[in-house]
């Protein structure tokens, strides 16, 4: 019935080549008016590249794009916005030190006076029932509020197409519900939405159509409501899902890591204070810590690794010995290895060879240094060992860490710590940015390590990952760690509420809150 109306956006045969990677290979699809269209794919499937071309940040090497039937000629984001294309980035392009209003003004091309702009902003906020104070400085806002700025900024331009790049990766389940309401209202007003995600449940709940990308190619276009999460996941990954062999008969041993009443002030202006954190992890146990980004995960990891000292030595006990105020090297020697979230410049030095990156943390446990002198050949051997055992794609131990892809560097770092066979391993985001194959490999390595008797702490924002791996789970919110729960008995609603900062509610009372239970939430990808 809409045959004569051209689609809002049509892509035909889009191809984009980067040095060494074919990011998009003959991609074609169309978005109708008022449609919520999902672009589904793993990290590295080519979603972001595609979007950057629509938004005018990049240009395709081949293929054509049509906007309302006419060729799309946006040479930069400004021109794209003028055509009515709005975009909300995964990593917000916000200015911390500026106010909400100033941030919005920067995204507008017209010369609206700040008073007129404020009036328009308030109008939009009202129309979509969003709460946001235009005069607040961004650095004081929560992640959800920050995303709202981006959305308002896009809405002010009366977009005909709104691109949302992984919008929910940093939101609590409750914030997600609110976001979906806004998006549905927009779509009902005729705005098309291109929704980029790898979260299957969300796509099932929200989207009318899904285009699935794998390795830069369109592998399928489907109606998500007629698919199961499992079937879409298989298309996205291109194979049967492999479950992690968890080894159910694992026996827990002695307490290897005990934290009692750990409190730390905010390290810097945008940091989170840790408040009275206590937990313990046994030999053989995997302890998961869930939570939305920026709730104290990095501070907790720093306190455990020794980059930050606790107030008293006894606050952290490692294999029965107090280490709360010891240096990282001392803790490593005593059996605690840690991997921070950020790979480049924190867990690894990009300009250093893999051999030197080995020296960084393994110099004591692998004896790569003797009486102040570096044993260069031993460090190269160690790097080669990691490369071989963890299947790191690298030219050798002399390759710089910066030359490795994200997934390979992650494998290298994980290998570096695991091969030191620590009694306690603390990792943040073990599979962030890693492809499914590598993720499965890392997961298996962690489970095997626990099996062999190590105590493991995993800090992750990926709830599915935590549910699959951990034996015990806690949630961190604003620097407070919830009481640990047995993963077998944990409920998604309860975890979601804890992530959103609702403390002290029991699972029962939580269920009375008006949150929609989201089906199949725990599908493991």
């Amino acid at each position: 019935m809409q045959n004569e109306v051209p689609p809002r956006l049509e892509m035909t045969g889009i191809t984009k080549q980067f040095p060494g990677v074919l990011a998009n290979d003959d991609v074609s699809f169309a978005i109708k008016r008022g449609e919520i269209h999902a672009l589904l794919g793993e990290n590295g499937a080519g979603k972001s590249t595609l979007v950057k071309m629509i938004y005018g940040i990049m240009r395709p090497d081949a293929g054509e794009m049509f906007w309302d039937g006419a060729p799309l000629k946006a040479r930069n984001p400004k021109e794209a916005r003028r055509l009515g294309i709005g975009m909300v980035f995964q990593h917000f392009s916000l200015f911390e030190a500026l106010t909400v209003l100033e941030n919005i003004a920067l995204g507008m091309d017209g010369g609206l006076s700040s008073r007129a702009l404020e009036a328009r902003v308030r109008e939009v906020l009202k129309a979509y029932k969003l709460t946001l104070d235009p005069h607040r400085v961004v650095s004081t806002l929560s992640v959800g509020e920050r995303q709202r700025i981006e959305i308002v900024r896009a809405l002010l331009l009366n977009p005909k197409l709104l691109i949302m790049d992984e919008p929910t990766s940093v939101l609590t389940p409750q914030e997600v519900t609110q976001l979906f309401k806004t998006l549905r209202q927009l779509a009902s007003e005729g705005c098309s939405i291109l929704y980029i995600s790898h979260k299957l449940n969300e796509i099932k709940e929200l989207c009318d159509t899904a285009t699935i990308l794998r390795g830069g190619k369109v592998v399928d276009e489907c109606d998500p409501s007629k698919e199961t999460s499992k079937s879409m996941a298989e298309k996205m990954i291109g194979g049967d899902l492999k479950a992690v062999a968890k080894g159910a008969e694992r026996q827990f041993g002695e307490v290897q890591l005990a934290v009692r009443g750990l409190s730390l002030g905010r390290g810097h202006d945008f940091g989170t204070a840790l408040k009275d954190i206590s937990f313990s992890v046994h030999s053989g146990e995997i302890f998961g810590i869930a939570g939305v980004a920026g709730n104290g995960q990095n501070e907790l990891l720093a306190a455990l690794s020794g980059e930050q000292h606790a107030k008293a030595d006894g606050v952290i006990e490692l294999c029965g010995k107090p280490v709360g105020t010891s240096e990282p090297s001392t803790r490593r020697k005593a059996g605690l290895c840690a991997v921070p979230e950020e790979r480049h410049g924190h867990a690894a030095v990009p300009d250093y060879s893999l051999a030197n990156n080995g020296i960084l943390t393994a110099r004591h446990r692998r004896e790569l240094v003797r009486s102040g002198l570096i044993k260069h050949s031993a460090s190269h051997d160690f790097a080669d060992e990691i490369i071989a055992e963890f299947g790191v794609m690298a030219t050798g131990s002399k390759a710089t860490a910066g030359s490795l892809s994200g997934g390979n560097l992650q494998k290298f770092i994980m290998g570096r710590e695991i091969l030191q066979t620590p009694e306690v391993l603390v990792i943040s985001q073990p599979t962030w940015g890693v492809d499914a194959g590598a993720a499965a490999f890392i997961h298996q390595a962690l489970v095997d390590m626990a099996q062999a008797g190590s105590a493991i702490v995993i800090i992750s924002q990926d709830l599915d990952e935590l549910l699959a791996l951990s034996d015990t789970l806690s949630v961190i919110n604003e620097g407070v760690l919830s009481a640990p729960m047995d993963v077998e008995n944990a409920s998604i609603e309860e975890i979601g509420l804890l992530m959103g900062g609702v403390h002290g509610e029991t699972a029962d009372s939580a269920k009375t809150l008006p949150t929609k239970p989201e089906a199949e939430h725990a599908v493991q990808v």
Partner: protein
Amino acid sequence: MQFRFEKRAEPSRIMLYATPVAAVLLTMVLGAIIFTIIGYDGIGAVREIFFTPLTNSLKWQDLAVKAAPLIIIGVGLSIGYRANVWNIGAEGQYIIGGLAATGVALLTQNMSGWWILPLMGIAGIAGGAAYVAVPAFLRVRLKVNEILTTLMLTYVAVNILNYLVFGPWKSPTSFGQPQTVAFNESQSLPYIIEGTIVQAGAPIAIIVALVAWFVMSRTIFGFQINTVGSAPKAAAYAGFSANKTILLALFISGGLAGLAGMLEAAGPFGRMVPQFPSNYGFTAIIVAFLGRLHPIGVLFAGIVLAITFVGGEVAQTTIALPNAAVGIFQAMMLFLLLAGDILIRYRVVRVVVAKGREAT
């Protein structure tokens, strides 16, 4: 034809070492052109500044004398810069090192013995290190930018020097000249080759560079300095204390500048005079960069910059080129070197410009 930069997968080691050489060569070409345009004998200037000191064997001794302090200070600065601490006040630490050594000399005026020179050396090192201690502690304790504090203290050091040689340290037999008494034999550096002006400074400079090379490439301390400088968060994670590293790096650079000051005072100057600040401390910054912050690179870069110093003096007498021209040549060298840095991480590729597309 258009070109653009394309990121390399790995930094190019060839470019790392080729660009300093290219920068020196390009400085000669551009320098000749520019100085011809502004009305000097451009080709003559390049010939006298860069080649005469090498071809004229009488100038070789001068080279050794000038290169020694540049290398010693340059090695210290390069260690500091690797730790990402920007001591640009080496000139001040050099002056204070020289003054500390002079202080010892004045106290031991009527004494003799083998121990006096080493004592002056220790005083020089301690003086330079002590003078950088203020910026060092301010940086570590209060996060005060060391660039500004070290530089400010250089101006203060010049005033301290003037105060002493015009006042309490002025020689009673100097007929009103602002200078100290001449150092005696036990207070002066020995000549290493009879009949030349080359004193012990030159071999000391080579030893300093070799020791620094060993420390920076073989020891965990060198690894620590590099890590703190290039990735501070990774350094903290690896268990290296940033504050200790910064303090040590600054003390080393200050101490070596002080040592250079002592060697100059007890060597070519033989007494303390207001002309003691010779810009070595500032030129050594260029030396450190041209040497790629590598002790052996600094050794060569020190010689290159010494050539321009000696050559500048030659050009002044032979073709009446103002001495300031040398400064311009040196600055050009640093500019071109920094410009060439991009070739380490990027390669230049030719862009085939398609219709309707503009290269960005």
